């Protein structure tokens, strides 16, 4: 194993090189773990919805808990108007959560620790939310940049700040997830290499740190998926229910 803590994020090609119109679209380890995560989700949901029991078994109960968890999250933050977007939010939450969780397994690859992945998701959400806003409210949607009840003197400044904060949404959304994932895995790797380098005598302290950090990282993996989904809901809420 290489001691470089950043090596775990290296993307490499698996199988033949696929080039379409000069663009390299080869299947990589990142793609593999996307497929693995998605497959786990689909298997989980398949077994979770296969038997329609009145009293659910464990896996059915878990699937239903995920369903009601996301449903409650959406209805709490974005209201009933966001119901058509429930499948998207649910898929997004499940995908991010399972990518994060699969990334916690040793020797696995964390899909969400790559800025390009999170940025594409965040940009898609940003563009989609903006389109939804304009479709629902027309040019009135621009009033999102003009908060009500602000003194006229401050209005230009506030508007500029609002525009900047609106435009920085995809950046903050993507960097938050990417940075959390990358930092956690880097720290785990660093402490792991400390265990190896300090050996049987001194390695216990970093090992205990590693154990604690693993627990923390699992929490972070869940939390970041939740945050990603709930921020999407909040952005959606802004677009659906114009408050100003």
């Amino acid at each position: 194993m290489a001691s470089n803590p950043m090596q775990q994020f290296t993307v490499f090609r698996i199988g033949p090189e696929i080039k379409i119109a000069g663009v390299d679209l080869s299947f990589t380890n990142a793609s593999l773990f996307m497929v693995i995560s998605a497959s786990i989700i689909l298997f989980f949901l398949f077994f979770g919805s296969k038997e329609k029991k009145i009293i659910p078994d464990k896996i059915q109960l878990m699937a239903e808990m995920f369903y009601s968890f996301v449903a409650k999250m959406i209805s709490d933050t974005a209201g009933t108007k966001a119901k058509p977007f429930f499948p998207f939010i649910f898929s997004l939450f499940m995908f991010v959560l399972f990518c994060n969780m699969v990334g916690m397994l040793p020797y696995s690859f964390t899909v969400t620790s790559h800025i390009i992945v999170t940025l594409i998701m965040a940009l898609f959400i940003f563009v989609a939310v903006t389109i939804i806003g304009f479709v629902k409210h027309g040019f009135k949607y621009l009033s999102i940049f003009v908060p009500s009840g602000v003194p006229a003197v401050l209005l230009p400044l506030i508007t500029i700040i609002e525009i900047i904060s609106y435009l920085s949404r995809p950046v903050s959304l993507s960097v938050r997830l990417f940075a959390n994932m990358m930092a956690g895995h880097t720290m785990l790797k660093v402490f792991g290499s400390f265990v190896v380098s300090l050996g049987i005598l001194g390695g216990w302290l970093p090992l205990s740190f590693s154990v604690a950090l693993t627990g923390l990282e699992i929490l972070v993996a869940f939390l970041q998926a939740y945050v990603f989904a709930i921020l999407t809901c909040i952005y959606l809420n802004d677009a659906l229910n114009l408050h100003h």
Partner: protein
Amino acid sequence: MKSFISLAIAVAAIDKELYAAEAGMPQLDPTYWASQAFWLVLVFLILYISISKFYLPKIKENLDNRENKIKEDIDNASKFKKQSEVRQKEYELILKNAKKEVSKILFESKNILDKEIKTKKEAMEKEIEKEILKAQKEISELKKNSISSVQNISENIVSNIIENISGDKLNESSIKATVEDISKKNISKFL
């Protein structure tokens, strides 16, 4: 805090080997960006379609079924409860009527009994009165008789005493008058 650390690491990595991304931050190496984007979109699309078309409706149906079943059960329970309440009311009504009947019967029999007792009592009282009257009559007759016999005895005694004392026979009618006079004076003492 977390993101700060990661940014610090990122910045340090970028500073050290800015142009060798595979040694610093593999995330910033654009070689496989297109591939990652492509596979992300593909995988997520498949995931989204299968979730929204197959799994979510199934789960939702399942949840709705359960909710309906629970609602149905609750409805049934409340129906049965209502039925039992009706039955309870019926039972109470029957009980009430029965109680009324009982009290009525009790009242009637008491009345009959009272009447019987009354008539019997009256009859008894009449009889007793009769007996008393009879007894009183007898007593008064007896008294009367006794007075007249006492008078007779007194007359005889008086005539005998006078005869013995004086040796003369007095007129019987005068003795009778005197005795009657005295007994009349004293009769109230005895009657």
